[in-house]
């Protein structure tokens, strides 16, 4: 889908990611196709375990070593297939082109190194990989400036502190700072606000959209929070059990959700004022990816389920939207009848 006016910076084509457990290999992401242009934000949305984080990690080759791998398709970054890169080439991409921010700010910073050391390490790695040198002092100055831009108070002091001495919001700012130290063209944000208080969450989202405007960075934002999506997304890709189920402009997703799962997600957001009503929840749970039933993966939880859904629905293009559901597939009705 996506905007055709700009060439995409990141493009996934028929991406298939598998995990191995023992001798069994099973797909956790299948047939994922999406694209993202500079300065845009694409939100990958879905429940835990739907494959959204795995997709984000796969872009940087950060799947669990030995068990996860990209088994098919390609991930094009500025036209180059990231899957086919050598370890050294991938390091160059990581050091200076694509950054990632993880959800768990407490675990994602090394507890044994000071903030200053971890920040300057990002700056220095970027310069080293680009074949330039940077002195310790320059790297320190740049790191300090980054902290200031992240809105970190008393940055000189923070540089000497260890991660456990900081609050969650501070740590997340540091992680974002580390990610931006690389002046990335693409920022992958893997639930960066999930573990934060709402007020801090709002500050972090503000900071990210501000930085995106200032630096024209593309953002692949992974979240399960439709409230966050509403705030930042240009495009939304809804995932369910490792597949894309709906993909559209943010407006199209919110105003005209077609897939029953998207519909359910939107109805699950608590509405102010509507007290006394039972909060809507999608019945059931995500199917086990190791033992997927044939056919539509949402079938068991779908209020519109019908016999046809025992077959895998095709992806249907409807104007700006792609949706994987028999209700909107051409001929879906007829086959049924």
């Amino acid at each position, binding site marked *: 889908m996506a905007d055709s006016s700009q060439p995409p910076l990141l493009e996934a084509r028929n991406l298939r990611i598998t995990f191995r457990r023992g001798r069994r290999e099973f797909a956790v992401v299948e047939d994922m196709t999406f694209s993202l242009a500079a300065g845009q934000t694409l939100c990958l949305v879905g429940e835990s375990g739907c494959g959204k984080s795995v997709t984000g990690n796969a872009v940087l080759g*950060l799947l669990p070593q030995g068990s996860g791998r990209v088994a098919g398709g390609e991930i094009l970054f500025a036209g180059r297939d990231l899957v086919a890169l050598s370890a050294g080439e991938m390091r160059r*991409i*990581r*050091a200076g082109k694509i950054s990632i921010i993880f959800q768990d700010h407490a675990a994602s910073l*090394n*507890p044994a190194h000071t903030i200053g050391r971890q920040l300057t390490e*990002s700056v220095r*790695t970027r310069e080293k990989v680009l074949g330039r040198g940077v002195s310790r002092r320059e790297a320190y100055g740049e790191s300090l400036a980054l902290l200031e831009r992240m809105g970190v108070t008393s940055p000189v002091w923070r540089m000497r502190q*260890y991660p*456990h001495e900081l609050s969650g919001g501070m740590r997340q700012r540091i992680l974002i700072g580390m990610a931006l130290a690389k002046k990335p063209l693409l920022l992958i944000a893997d639930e960066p606000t999930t573990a934060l208080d709402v007020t801090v969450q709002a500050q972090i989202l503000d900071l990210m959209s501000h930085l995106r405007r200032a630096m024209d960075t593309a953002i692949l934002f992974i979240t399960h929070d439709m409230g966050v999506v509403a705030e930042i997304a240009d495009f939304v890709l809804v995932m369910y059990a490792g597949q894309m189920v709906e993909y559209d402009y943010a407006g199209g997703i919110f105003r005209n959700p077609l897939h029953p799962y998207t519909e359910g997600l939107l109805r699950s957001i608590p509405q102010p004022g509507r007290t006394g009503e039972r909060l809507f929840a999608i019945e059931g749970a995500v199917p086990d990816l190791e033992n997927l039933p044939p056919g539509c993966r949402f079938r068991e939880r779908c209020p519109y389920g019908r016999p046809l859904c025992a077959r895998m629905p095709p992806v249907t293009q409807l104007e700006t939207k792609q949706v994987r559901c028999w209700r909107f597939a051409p001929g879906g009705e007829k086959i049924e009848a």
Partner: protein
Amino acid sequence: MLRFIVRRILQAIPIFIGITAIVFALANLAPGSPADVVAAAGNLPEAAYEELKTALGLDKPLPVRYALWLGRLLHGDLGFSSNAHRQVWDLIGQRIGPSLLLAGTAILLALTVGVALGVMAAYRPYSRWDNISSALSFIGVSTPNFFLSLLLIYIFAVRLGLLPAQGMYYTGHKSLSGLLLHLLMPASVLGLQMVGNFVKQTRNSMLTALNEEYIKTARAKGLGEAAVVLRHALRNAWIPVVATLGMTVPTLVGGAVVTEQIFGWPGIGSLMVHSINTRDYNTIMGITVLVSLGVLAVNIVLDAVYSLLDPRIKV
């Protein structure tokens, strides 16, 4: 930090008194005394035997003797060796250097090899390296060191004639190369005995560290694998290894007794064996003081080191 160290030193005092009291009792209650050793050497008249016992202070009851010994210790007096007829301080002073050299080399060897093998094993678990290193540590831990010593002596000294089997220097001239050649076998035996613990601890804590999120962060920064493994993972994997180091020191002392004896290494271990055989109470106690103070001090230092390794630990 200073308060912590002072507190730990105060805690160590009762432990130290306990150790020395037990060793003092065991040594003195064992059959035979320094007087008996002298008596056995020639036919000593009964009167002279009693006189000797009085002169050595052996006529007093055990608790009194311990109290007297402790009192002298507080003045820095370890007493007189009944066997060597010299101050115990002098004897120990002469032997401590070789022992520290042997033990230090062994620890360094075990730590370097153990940590290196452990890191490689954790980086590629169940690989060939992992199997080799676990086999090596299993052999090291389970082979009695007297057996290993004799095996090495047989192969390298007797069969191949490459290494000297006894002593610290070639007779006649003291050279560094001679020292190193003499050091090689006993240090390897002692080190191999400990290497398994280091391999196992390093592998375990590296496996944990390598699965942490900050390792993913480090890779995502574009760092090379060496920096990821050494700078980020190993840095956090040190604590259990250091703890193992602390627990290894007593093993080392025990191992040194056997190894020094077999290789004729002029250290504390062989002095210990000799002084036990001759019921040289003061020397036994002097060595006990030295070893227990050493072990206690190492443990206090290592506890302080934890807080340097992990900033989250406050002491």
